[in-house]
């Protein structure tokens, strides 16, 4: 079994509040440092820094991001759920492909999908439509073409 399905509950309020916090963080980062909040760009710049002060703010931001689940635990009493429905092999394949794609595409869901869409950047709108569509097609193929054909992959 390399890919299964774990049902999840519809959580409109928690998801909306989470989205509002993500947007708030993006606005505050623009206000403070004049930067868009793109996870890909922040991580890439952290790994190949353009100087020590450039590295420092990226490191501080990443440290904060990683503290997020702990902050969530203080409110919710437990860590956020991470339910992985696929095998470790597929997780590695998926991760490598994501790394390739976001580097060539210059951004991901946060950079293009949130910050770029909010700025009405034509590049980001095209990028977001492209990856939303290809993600949907990929999920459809894995769950509704490959899985039935192989008796659950």
């Amino acid at each position, binding site marked *: 079994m390399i*890919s299964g*399905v774990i049902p*999840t509950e519809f959580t*409109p309020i*928690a998801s909306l509040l*989470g*989205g*509002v*916090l*993500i*947007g708030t*963080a*993006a*606005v505050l980062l*623009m*206000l403070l*440092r*004049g*930067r*868009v909040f793109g*996870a890909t760009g922040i991580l890439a710049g952290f*790994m190949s820094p353009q100087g020590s002060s450039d590295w420092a703010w990226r490191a*501080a*931001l990443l440290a*904060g*991001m990683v*503290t*997020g689940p*702990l902050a969530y635990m203080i409110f919710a009493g437990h860590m*956020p759920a*991470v*339910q992985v*429905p*696929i095998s*470790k092999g597929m*997780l*590695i394949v*998926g*991760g*490598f*492909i*994501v*790394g*390739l*794609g976001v580097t060539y*595409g*210059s951004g*991901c*869901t946060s950079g293009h999908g*949130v910050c770029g*869409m909010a700025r009405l*950047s*034509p*590049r980001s709108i095209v990028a977001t439509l492209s*990856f939303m*569509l*290809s993600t*949907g097609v990929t999920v*459809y193929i894995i*769950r509704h073409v490959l899985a039935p054909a192989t008796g659950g992959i």
Partner: protein
Amino acid sequence: MSLFLTYVIGVIFGLGISMSGMANPSKVLNFFDVAGAWDPSLIFVMGGAVTVSFFGYRWVFRKFRSPAVEPQFMVPTSRVIDAKLVGGSVVFGVGWGIAGFCPGGALPALGTFDGDVWLFSIAMVAGIFAAKFLMKLTATRAARHAS
């Protein structure tokens, strides 16, 4: 002080990702599985995030001539829509559809110390370096052909 504020902004983002469900690959994959176990929650994440940043960015740019601790706003200015942008984004979507993690979801989720998130993230970093290496290689080849 500005580094501490940057850290706090990171915490707000990570808390938002944790609440929203973006750190949970099953929730992400079920959002895209319209024909199956559909969970529409992520529409609310995107809706909330884009609405707040749409109005928030406008307010920041109207109200301030420069950010608080940097001399100027460093907003991406490229308007080029090419095969690299579209192809890269399509490839990203394939990976996202396989694994259910995107970079902005996975990085905060590292803080749960879930082994699978670390495995995904290490593979993603390897993919980023592989892409940078390939880009450098093609750039060198193109320069050699040009000379």
